[in-house]
């Protein structure tokens, strides 16, 4: 592990003992892998080895929820992809050596002051508008005070009573394989704040080191209304937030890197009961499927206690999701409310937005996922196709560009979702990284539709285009791939094959009609794959069955 380096001041690796670690207010993320793939919550589910299949798992929860209702609210922290940190000019690069993305300001050295990066406001306004919120034209920053070694100033610059955006909502469609359905969840508030550093724990747990690279990185905290009712809905909510921030270009939304972190509050109550049950906070879920499973586990646990009459055992606490054991465990019990002694940040002026500023940002917003989904639906695509295509904005843009260039909608969707997607998946590439252009995909589709080439040849050309580029026209010409649609020419080839294979012809006519495939194959081979399959089969059958 890299040692802690502080520029310009005394270097002193700082020791922390494990007993101290549990007094932390934010969750500790245990990140190991890097993943740049974008996935929907359920697509991710399908790829994850699970102890319970998603369907039976959901069934179990559905049964539980016949008598009980789960109330779920989510606090999402989104790390903003600004060039520099929120209040200093340090860049933040995930995975850098500890304490190399730091300066006196984000280290909280005496005498330093924060100066707000205006991009943070711009991104917050974008997200506020995209979440249909009311924007506070006059907001401010506040200090949230607590002691922890990863918090260099002893307070976090955040927003308390006047968040930049409030009272919005988000809409999403549940995946069809889970029964589908459209959902609308309320957004309580969106506020700006700074991230804290990270503690690096030693192998044997005897000490910890402080890495301040992440300290001062801008965050948006998005708080949902308690409108969510299941692990699936929660995972889809988080996935939609991820999609949204990626569409807006404000964050990479990567859960494994901690760019998107969700703290979930779960309570249950018997159907019909008005007051909420005791709420439990769950942390440490670093994938959507983990969220789904952690929440469903927690719901079952709480319902179990209810049904045994032990609902007094449900206490206000923070529980950690243990991926290995597939369960939540107590992290710390909440004893009264923490007093963060918020007060207005005197080092920063108020945040004042003008109508013009907001209007300009509103005008700059591109089509958001929900609007896109509704548009694709109107184009006649199935919800499954809609969800696939809109999941990644680049894929959607590619699709849109392809149909803009005249490709038939369903065919364009199919090509993108099958062969292209499979290629991207195998090669771990994004759709922007391949040489195929929407123009050529459209060309390819119309060449197939117009009968210039067969679907089979189309596929060959596609892979050529993806890896080497070029145009459909040039490839067809260069490789002489134009489909043979002249019946006389095909008839000639059929005749040739029949003559060259008298033995098989005799067998066919003796009743072994399976051999039709053999003849078709031979003719296709002779045409170098260019014969129109329909015409070929039609003429072949006529000739085979002709009493000669």
């Amino acid at each position, binding site marked *: 592990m890299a040692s802690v380096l502080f520029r310009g001041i005394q270097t002193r690796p700082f020791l922390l003992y494990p007993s101290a670690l549990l007094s932390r207010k934010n969750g500790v993320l245990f990140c190991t892998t890097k993943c740049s793939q974008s996935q929907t919550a359920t697509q991710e589910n399908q790829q994850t080895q699970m102890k319970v299949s998603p369907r039976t798992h959901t069934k179990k929860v559905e049964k539980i929820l016949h008598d009980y209702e789960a109330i779920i609210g989510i606090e999402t922290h989104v790390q903003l992809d600004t060039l520099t940190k929120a209040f200093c000019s340090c860049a933040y690069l995930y995975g850098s050596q500890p304490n190399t993305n730091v300066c006196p300001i984000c280290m909280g050295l005496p005498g330093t002051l924060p100066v707000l990066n205006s991009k943070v406001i711009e991104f917050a306004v974008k997200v506020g508008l995209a979440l249909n919120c009311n924007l506070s034209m006059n907001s401010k920053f506040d200090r949230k005070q607590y002691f922890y070694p990863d918090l260099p100033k002893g307070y976090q610059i955040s927003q308390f009573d006047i968040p930049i955006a409030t009272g919005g909502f988000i809409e999403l469609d549940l995946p069809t394989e889970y029964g589908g359905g459209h959902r609308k969840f309320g957004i309580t508030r969106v506020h700006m704040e700074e991230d804290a550093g990270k503690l690096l724990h030693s192998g044997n747990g005897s000490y910890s080191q402080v890495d301040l690279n992440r300290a001062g990185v801008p965050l948006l905290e998005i708080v949902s209304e308690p409108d969510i009712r299941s692990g699936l809905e929660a995972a889809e909510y988080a996935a939609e937030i991820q999609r949204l921030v990626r569409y807006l270009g404000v964050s990479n939304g990567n859960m494994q890197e901690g760019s998107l972190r969700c703290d979930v509050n779960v309570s249950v109550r018997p159907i019909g009961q008005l007051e909420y049950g005791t709420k439990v906070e769950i942390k440490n879920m670093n994938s959507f499927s983990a969220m789904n499973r952690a929440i469903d586990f927690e719901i079952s646990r709480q319902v179990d206690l209810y049904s045994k009459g032990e609902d007094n055992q449900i206490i206000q606490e923070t529980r950690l999701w243990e991926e290995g054991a597939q369960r939540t465990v107590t992290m710390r019990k909440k004893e009264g409310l923490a007093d963060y*002694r918020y007060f207005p940040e005197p080092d*920063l002026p108020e945040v004042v937005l003008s109508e013009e500023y907001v209007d300009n940002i509103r005008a700059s917003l591109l089509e958001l996922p929900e609007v896109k989904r509704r548009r694709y639906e109107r184009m006649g695509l199935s919800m499954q196709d809609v969800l696939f295509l809109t999941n990644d904005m680049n894929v959607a843009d590619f699709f849109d560009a392809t149909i803009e260039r005249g490709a038939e909608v369903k065919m364009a969707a199919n090509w993108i979702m099958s062969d292209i997607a499979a290629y991207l998946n195998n090669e771990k590439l994004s759709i922007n990284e391949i040489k195929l252009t929407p123009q050529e995909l459209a060309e390819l589709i119309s060449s197939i539709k117009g009968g210039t080439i067969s679907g089979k040849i189309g596929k060959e050309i596609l892979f050529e285009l993806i890896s080497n580029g070029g145009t459909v026209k040039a490839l067809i010409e260069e490789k002489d791939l134009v489909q043979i649609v002249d019946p006389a020419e095909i008839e000639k080839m059929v005749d040739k094959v029949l003559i060259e294979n008298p033995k098989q012809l005799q067998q066919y006519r003796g009743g072994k009609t399976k051999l039709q495939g053999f003849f078709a194959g031979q003719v296709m081979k002779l045409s170098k794959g260019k014969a129109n399959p329909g015409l070929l089969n039609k003429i072949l059958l006529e000739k085979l069955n002709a009493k000669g």
Partner: protein
Amino acid sequence: MLSSVQNPRLFFVRCRFQFHLPSKSRHFHGSVAVRTSETVMEPQTHASSTTPPSSEILTIRKSLLSHQKKAVDIAEEYLNRLRQTEPQIQSFLHVSENALRDAQAIDQKIERNEELGPLAGVLVGVKDNICTVDMPSTGGSRILEDYRPAFDATAVKKLRECGAIIVGKTNLDEFGMGSTTESSGFQVTANPWDVSRVPGGSSGGSAAAVSARQCVVSLGSDTGGSVRQPASFCGVVGMKPTYGRVSRFGLMAYASSLDVIGCFGSSVVDTAILLHAISGHDILDATSSKRVVPDFSSQLTSMELFESKPLRGLRVGVIRETLGDGVDMGVISSIKAAASHLEELGSTVIEVSLPSFSLGLPAYYILASSESSSNLSRYDGVRYGNQVASDELNSLYGDSRANGFGPEVKMRILMGTYALSAGYYDAYYKRAQQVRTLVQKSFKTALDENDILISPAAPSVAYKIGEKKNDPLAMYAGDIMTVNVNLAGLPALVLPCGFVEGGVAGLPVGLQMIGAAFDEEKLLKVGHIFEQTLQGCRFLPPLVADSLS
């Protein structure tokens, strides 16, 4: 007569009244002034010469440019005095080893005929809560003992760019919390006028250093009067600029919404030149103002050019609430005499009332303590400063802070933490903010009707070391004259205006002039005319008077 209150100003005003009344259009001339004071003030050491204070900075510049003196000689002169007086005064926590080398560099520049910055060869003392990259910066606190910043404060950076020589770091009440400099974690500074007395605080080191001519000018910081009150106690000029005029970057925060870096000088001109050098917007301080900075000293003409009524048309308001109970009689007399002097110079003086004045003190202590409880959270022993090793995180925090902070700082952190706690916030912090708004409004009204407001800088002159150490409330009450100005964010200039009996040669009294936001130029202009026409007072402490005269 006035033997109990040895106030030469009073003498002078009385005398001059008869003297001047007949000839209204007469110009002030040095010769006249000398004659006047000689007749009245002969026995007083501080009045032995009546030449009005002249700019040390301009004198240095003149000697350098005319090759009369070398920068090294000038630096040595001050350093020698520093070494001689420091055992008694103890105004410095650290003296630079580079001062002579910096002076040599100036001399080389002169030899090469290179252009000199406006502060070339000027020795500047810097309060130790202002970061300097080449010297320790402790904020007067044991928790930052030997701490060396990675950067210069913007004000220091600007001084260096102007050619100034940073001579050392001056003593202060820990993190600026105190009014006597006795709360320093390291040493107690003495008042050069009477070493048994406090120099005031929290910028006591900076004020004492200028007073004892250990340096030419100095930087302090003013959160509730920390430049103005020690200026008054030590008989030097102290300027608290408008909030936002000078960048706070590099100033260790005490109460961020009140803190400003201020200036000390032995004359108004020097203070103006210093202020000009450090003022202006800074991208590293979001609360620094983008307003254009006027050349404060260019308006300060020499005495020969004054008209007989140079302040004609100036409306001066005397704050009634500052001359009542709890204010020493000698101080009141001096301020009244100063008011008469301003009147003599042509201004109209009226009494104004600031009804919210007395509310300012409690509001100030709530807001300042609240902000300090937050600002001092970073001193946790984790990243820098003194750490008390421990097996457990909470005791590491607790022990490091218990060991590093002094009692005054601990008290204010506790008060501030309490005031910001859930359930108390509305009753304390929020109400104090409301008072702050009231104070701002009443100043606004008063300054709409008057060009400047005047008051004492402190209710008393310098008191004995230890006198108020165990009575924090009495010490806090001493800030009554100054805290309101910080709450309103206004500029204020303090300049010596008279003496009260005490010590071997009397103890100086400071006059506070308060202006509208960003109106430093007017304050300095009025202050300069006041200072140059004030007769019979020489604010050079006896400790150094002999060596200088």
